[in-house]
Every structure is written in C-alpha cells, then in structure tokens.
C-alpha cells in the first residue's frame, strides 16, 4: 500500500507537483491520468525516492520514503519513465543483475528469473543480447527486472507508451495479474482508454494538482459526460486551454 500526503515539488519558479494526496491500496490498480507535463512522472519519481519532495509525506507499506529511501525502494518494483537497457547483456542477465542488487540470490534468483521469463513470454529471447530488441521486448525486460524481488508495490510510468497492440495487451495482462496477486499497482498514462480499461481508481492530474479522483463511473457522473474521454478533457481543464 502506498500513501501520499500533501506532496509538493518546485523546479525554480514552476510548481511541478502541488499538494498531491492519494492512496493506492493493495489489490487495486490506481491510475494517474493527466496530459503530458502534468506532473505524473515527477510524482512517481518522488514515490520511488529518486527525487526529494519539497514538502509532504510518502509511505510505502509504512516506510517513510523520504526518511528511508532505500527501505522504500526494497518494497517497490519500478518501471521508470526512461528505462534504458544494457545492449551487451542478455534479457536474463538484466533480470539477474537487478535481482542481485535487491538481495535475491542463488536458487531463489534462478527460480524467480525463470518464472518471470515464462510469465512474460520471454523464453525465446531470454539469452539474447538486448541490442536488437523491439520496443515491446525492451519493455518486457524492464518490467521483468522491476519485479524480480517480488515487490508488494508496483509503480509503472507510462508502461504502454509506444507499444503496439499485442505488446499493450500483454502489459495490461501483467498489470491485471499483479492486482490479482494482491499488490498495489500505480501506473501513469495520458491515454484515457488505457486507464479506463484497467483502473479501479483514477486520479486526474493537471498542472501539478489533483483535479478529480474516483472510480471511472464516479468520474463520469461527476462531469456529466458519458464518454470518459470527454470527462478527462473537462476535468483536466483542457477545453479552457483550447479556448484561451
């Protein structure tokens, strides 16, 4: 479970994240929805403790991510915004490297690696160097290495960005499975359909602030738009922007 209270982050004169509070319970998918530049990535970066918030509190399973970033990181599986791979290492070696850094070793590491390769349907590419991988294959490697230590909380920053239909479906499948296993999943997206297809709760962010949150149905009701995309546009204040 992840709890965020009054998070704030300032870059010079720009307030990138402003008083953001939410909760991502176990066994549920929480979607951060917002246009590009709304503050989704910055929020997530503070959650996985690579960025220090200017104010606010983050709890990952009761570990304070600001006071004990390493403790929080051990409880998190993260797919960052930029997820570069090492072109000269194989898919399996990527998973093992991160597993070892997380303190998994020996038979356990081997078992988890094999399990992930199986689950993500990566057996065919497991022992190939990642240099020539497609975007979908690369994303799978990045997700697999983020899950090798069996984290209870998962953060995915735009996991389906740029993927083709089949890869997108595969990633959705992974997210559903993670939820079924009782993990807390937070993922960000700027694509409405993505969020509505997967999320139990949606948090709409615009200009660094939460403008609405609730179940997809609640959001439709709140805005009076039957179509979620219209609801999103209305909530994010994008209409006004276009008019201005």
């Amino acid at each position: 479970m992840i709890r965020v209270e009054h998070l704030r982050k300032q870059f010079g004169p720009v307030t990138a994240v402003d008083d953001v509070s939410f909760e991502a319970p176990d066994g549920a998918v929480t979607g951060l929805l917002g246009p590009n530049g709304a503050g989704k990535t910055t929020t997530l970066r503070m959650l996985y403790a690579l960025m220090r918030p200017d104010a606010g509190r983050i709890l990952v399973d009761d570990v304070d991510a600001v006071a004990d970033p390493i403790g929080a990181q051990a409880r998190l599986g993260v797919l960052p915004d930029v997820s570069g791979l090492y072109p000269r290492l194989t898919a399996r070696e990527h998973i093992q490297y991160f597993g070892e850094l997380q303190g998994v070793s020996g038979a356990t590491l081997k078992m988890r690696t094999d399990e992930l390769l199986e689950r993500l349907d990566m057996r065919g590419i497991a022992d190939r160097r990642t240099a020539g991988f497609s975007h979908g294959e690369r994303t799978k490697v990045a997700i697999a290495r983020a899950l090798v230590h069996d984290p209870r909380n998962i953060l995915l920053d735009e996991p389906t960005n740029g993927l083709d239909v089949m890869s997108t479906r595969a990633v959705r499948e992974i997210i559903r499975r993670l939820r079924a296993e009782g993990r807390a999943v937070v993922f960000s997206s700027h694509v409405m359909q993505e969020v509505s297809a997967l999320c139990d709760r949606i948090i709409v962010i615009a200009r660094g602030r939460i403008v609405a949150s609730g179940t997809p149905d609640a959001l439709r009701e709140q805005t009076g738009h039957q179509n979620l995309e219209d609801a999103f546009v209305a909530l994010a204040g994008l209409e006004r922007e276009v008019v201005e």
Partner: protein
Amino acid sequence: MSRLSQMLVVTRKELRDAFRDRRAIYSVLFGSLFGPILVGVMFNAIADRQREVEDITVPVVGIEHAPALVDWLRQQSGVTVVEGPADAESAVRDRTQDVVVVIPDDFAKRFRASRPVELQVVSDGSRTASRPKVQRVRALLQRYNGEVAALRLVGRGVSPAVISPLQIQDREVSSAQQRAAVILNFIPLFIVLASFTGGMQIATDSTAGERERGSLEPLLVNPAPRMVIAGGKWLAAALSATLSVAITTTLCLTLLRFIPLQDLGIRFRLGPEQVAWLLVAVLPLCLLSTAIQTYLSTFARSFKEAQSYMGYLIMVPMLPGMLSSVYPITSQPWMYPIPILGQHLLASDVLGGKSPSPIMFVLAALAALATAIVLVRLTTGLLQREKIVFGR
C-alpha cells in the same frame, strides 16, 4: 545484504558488460601494447647504431699512398678498410657514405721527411646518426698519430712522456644502471599511461554511457546506496586498469631481456624483486586514475563528451615526464606523496637500480588511495543530484 557484496555485484556486471565490448578490449590492448612495442623498436634502433660503430667500414681514398697507415687500421679490431669513392665530398653529401678518409698523394714523401701530412676526414656534421662513426675514425687516426709521434721521439732519444704533460681520464660517477634509467625513463611513463588507458572505457561507459542510455534511473531505483554504485563502477575500472598495467609491465620487462642492452654500454639487471617493487609503486595509481575518470565522466551527458574529457586528462600523467626532460628533476622526499608524480619517481628509481625507502612506497600509495576515496565520494555526491540522475 552487505554493502560490499552489493558493490561487487555492480563491479562484476560492469566488467562483464565491458569485456563484451570490442572497443573496451581494444582500448585495454592498445594502451598496454603501445608502450612495450615502442620501447622495443627504439632500443633496437639505438643498439643497431651502437653496433655499427663497433664494426665500422672505413672508405679510404688513396690507400696506395700510405700502406703502413692502412695496415695499422686493418689491424684494429672491428675495422675494415675499403677503397673510397672517387669524389669523397659528394659521396658524403648524398649520403652514400657516412665518412671518407682522404690520403694525399704526397703522404709518403712528407711522412718520410717527418713533416705534417694533411689527412682529410670528410663528414656531414648535420647528421647526428653518423656522428659516433666519425668520432671513432677520428679517434683511430689520433691514436696512430700518437703512436708514430712516440716512436719518432724515442728514435731521437726523447721520452714520449715529455710531450704529454696532461693525461686526461674520464671517470663516470653515475652507475651504469642510472645511465640506463635515463634511457629507460619512458618505461615508467608508459606504465603510468597504461593505468589511465586501461580503465578509461569502463569509467566512461558505466557513468556517462549509463546516462546516455537512460539506464541510470532504473539502476538507482534499486535499494543500494549511491556510494555502493559509484564504488562498484570505480572498482571495475580500477581492475581493468590494473590488468592493463600488469600487461604493460610484463611486456616491457620481457622485451628488455631480449634487447641487447650491453651493446648500449648498459648493465641492466631486473630480477623478480625489482618487478615486484615496480608493481607496488604503480598499482595504487590505478585506483586514483580511474577515480578521476569516473568522477569526470559522471559529469558528462554522453559517452562522447566523457571521452573528450579523457583526452585532456591523459596529459596529466605525461607532465612529470615532460617536465623532467626540461628541468632534470632530482627527486626530493616531498615529491613522493604527490599522486602521479610520486608513482613516476618510484618507478624511475626502481628501474634505475636505486631502492627508495619502503616508507616512500607507503606514502605514495596512501596519497593516491586517499585522493581516490575523496573522488569516489564526490562521484557519490554527483549521483545524488537530481540534475545528474534525470538530466540527459
């Protein structure tokens, strides 16, 4: 999980990653082989020239005018006399000959009358390569001159000692091994350079390369302190540099066994003990050189940018060598704890047959290690900056 084992995980990954990269292998190999090969080629060239002087062929014009002189010359060890070219001057000018001795027609007549004979030694003073040979010929003629003069005096009942009020003797105070060190001075330079080239690829690829690929952010999401990440990368680079230094040192010293150093008038002895001291002197430098490289490369956003920094950095280890050719450095105790300079001096001392006090080795190593640790801490600080982690 202990911090140390986490650090070794990073080190192992970086080494494995790097040695799958041809560029890394080439840079280690090139850095390691360049020095020894150059040393070998240069020594052989010098030795060849020296041998040439010992076995010389002297072209003489007008052999028939002074058969006694020519016979005397032929009796000297290593000297062969041949008929000289008709036009001595142009033969020397167009470099078909290094030196030509011209005996005049009236040699026999004047010689018999005990009048000075003008002998010409034709040479080109602008050619350094032929200078030893010319000097040898001149010395031979001087000796003949002295011997004949002595005989003439004896024939007139005068002791030859009368005309030699001064007897000049050269006494060289530097040991043969010290003279060798002057010539061997570039071996320490190459070894020091190897400590910079050997770890360069890993230092840049694991930091600037990591930023460029966008793999730094996912890496730092793992629960490892930044010190562990920075330390692991540094250690991998340092091990690679160590390998490079070991190859260079071994090759240089193996080559020296095959080079005919005695032809250069150098008595050079390099046993296992000297090799050990040489490595003790230089290996701590691998920790420092790679710490500097890791730090600088972490600033760089791309591999290329990092490499341009490395290009400037490589000048630093060359400085002691370049300065010592302008100002001959007599090593002072205070110089040893200066990183890089200290290692250079120690290596020169060991090769020169001097044995510096073990305290100097310890001081130099400690100074290098301390500076390296400071730099790794600074790198850790860089990895904590959001601008470095996210700025691409």
